[in-house]
């Protein structure tokens, strides 16, 4: 394992210090407990939005702190949910009196730790609402699983909820729009290699030189199925089919198409995937009216990608287009 790190125990603290040094115009950082907060937090009267989860998925979530998106991000250790303490501290820091929305990816650890923090925040008279993101169609949502995972769709939920909060929606409304985005978003991913967690020092799973994992998570969990490497177009078809079937997406739909890199895949490859995905959607009469391509929800240096489709309506489109000023997503003014 080769990494550009110092002591593996200091990875998150040092990275957060780097974020503070790199984006002083956008964020302020708390080191004990660790969280990243909008420079001007709290915004009086605005619903605060907090997200978080294990580190190793950057720019998620710290790269999305700023005007029009998150008020705070709480990075746990690599691939490990943060504990309630920093979540509570971040929640207090961003509470501008209009309550706080927790956006939580659906993993047992994240859900339980955010739940505890929300209880503790409630005890301090902060109104907290929680929206769970579970967009990954690779996982069956049944009694016999922990439910679907939250993956790349989280970015879309955070952006759109952030825009709703920024325009002054109240806590119920912001939670409602976040819930709607999650309900209309589906994702699925593929991995060509496994990530290497700094404290583990070896790849999270072993994958032969000619095989890939389909239906991968973002924490180095193996996927749902292991298959032989295929051409990019065939892989896109495999990822898109369950996505489109699940919602279901239909001819005439307007969608946001998001091709997300898992960290170690070159951008040329992401665009090759995007090309095919757009082609398939066009064939089905689905209009790609908004797009996103890049490394937004990563799994350290894992090679791979995920495809996310969000069914848009006028409200979601308007909120997507609204200005956002964060380290990793930025447009408008």
């Amino acid at each position, binding site marked *: 394992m080769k990494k550009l790190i110092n002591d593996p125990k200091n990875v998150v603290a040092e990275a957060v210090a780097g974020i503070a040094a790199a984006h002083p115009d956008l964020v302020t950082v708390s080191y004990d407990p660790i969280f990243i907060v909008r420079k001007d937090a709290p915004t009086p009267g605005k619903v605060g939005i907090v997200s978080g989860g*294990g580190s190793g998925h950057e720019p998620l979530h710290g790269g999305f702190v700023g005007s029009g998106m998150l008020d705070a991000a709480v990075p*746990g*250790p*690599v*691939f*490990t*949910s*943060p*504990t*309630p*303490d920093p979540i509570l501290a971040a929640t207090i820091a961003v509470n501008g009196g209009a309550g706080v929305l927790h956006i939580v990816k659906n*993993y*047992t*650890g994240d859900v*339980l*730790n955010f*739940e*505890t923090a929300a209880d503790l925040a409630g005890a301090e008279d902060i109104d907290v609402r929680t929206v769970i993101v579970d967009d990954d169609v*690779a*996982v*069956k949502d049944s*009694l*016999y*699983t*922990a439910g679907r*995972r939250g993956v790349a769709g989280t970015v879309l939920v955070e952006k759109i909820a952030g825009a709703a909060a920024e325009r002054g929606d109240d806590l119920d409304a912001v939670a409602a729009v976040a819930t709607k985005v999650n309900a209309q978003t589906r994702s699925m991913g593929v991995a060509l290699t496994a990530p290497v*967690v700094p*404290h*583990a020092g*070896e790849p*999270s*799973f072993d994958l032969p030189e000619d095989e890939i994992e389909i239906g991968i*998570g973002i*924490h*180095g*969990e*193996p996927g*749902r199925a292991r298959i032989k490497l295929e051409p990019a177009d065939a892989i896109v078809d495999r990822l898109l089919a369950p996505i489109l079937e699940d919602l279901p997406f239909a001819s005439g739909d307007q969608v946001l198409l998001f091709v997300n890199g898992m960290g170690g895949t070159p951008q040329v490859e992401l665009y090759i995937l995007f090309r095919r995905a757009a082609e398939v959607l066009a064939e089905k009469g689905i209009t790609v009216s908004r797009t996103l391509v890049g490394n937004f929800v990563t799994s350290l240096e894992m090679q791979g990608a995920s495809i996310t489709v969000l069914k848009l309506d006028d409200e979601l489109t308007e909120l997507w287009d609204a200005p956002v000023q964060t380290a990793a997503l930025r447009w408008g003014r």
Partner: protein
Amino acid sequence: MTLGITWVTDWIRLSARVIAEHRVELITLDREIGDGDHGENLDRGFSAVIVKLDALPADALPGDALKLVATTLISTVGGASGPLVGTAFLKAAQAAGKEAELDGAAIVALLTAARDGVVLRGKAAVGDKTMIDAWSPAVDAATAAEADGKSEPEILLAAADAAEKGAESTEPLVAHKGRASYLGERAIGHRDPGSQSSALMLRAASDAAQPGFSLVESPGA
């Protein structure tokens, strides 16, 4: 022979040592069907516990020590195991109440409360391939041993043996809770890391209770 604060602090210190020793094993188990952090998570938590334990007042009760473990684990472990193992110790602390000495019935009550706390938080049942598969048989075995009039060390030994078997029993299972549930059939053949760490902690509880136990040369090491 009831068990008091010495047993509890020995149990905690021994757990910390055993978790540290099995850190890589637990990481490896979690790599196979999870995300490879379980050993790191618990080791981080118990390292923090050990530091805090030194500051425990001399007159602390078992419940105080168990509560310290609970709050420290909850605020340092994170992940799924932080809140779950934390809750186990929190409920155990509540069950221990203000007692200075715990007899067999109290120990069974303590273990039962711990298990029930995890079930309440995590909603897992036996057979879901989680730490409950270690905790539940341990509680059952302890309950039976106590009913049979066994001594406190014997009760804890029965619990530890059952937890170990319980951890083993997760190997052929498909997981229904936690990260391993994403894997479906692919989880079969792998032991659940949380059941393994729970078995280690329950073995530490038993070892620390055996007559003649000394932390310096721990029989579990």
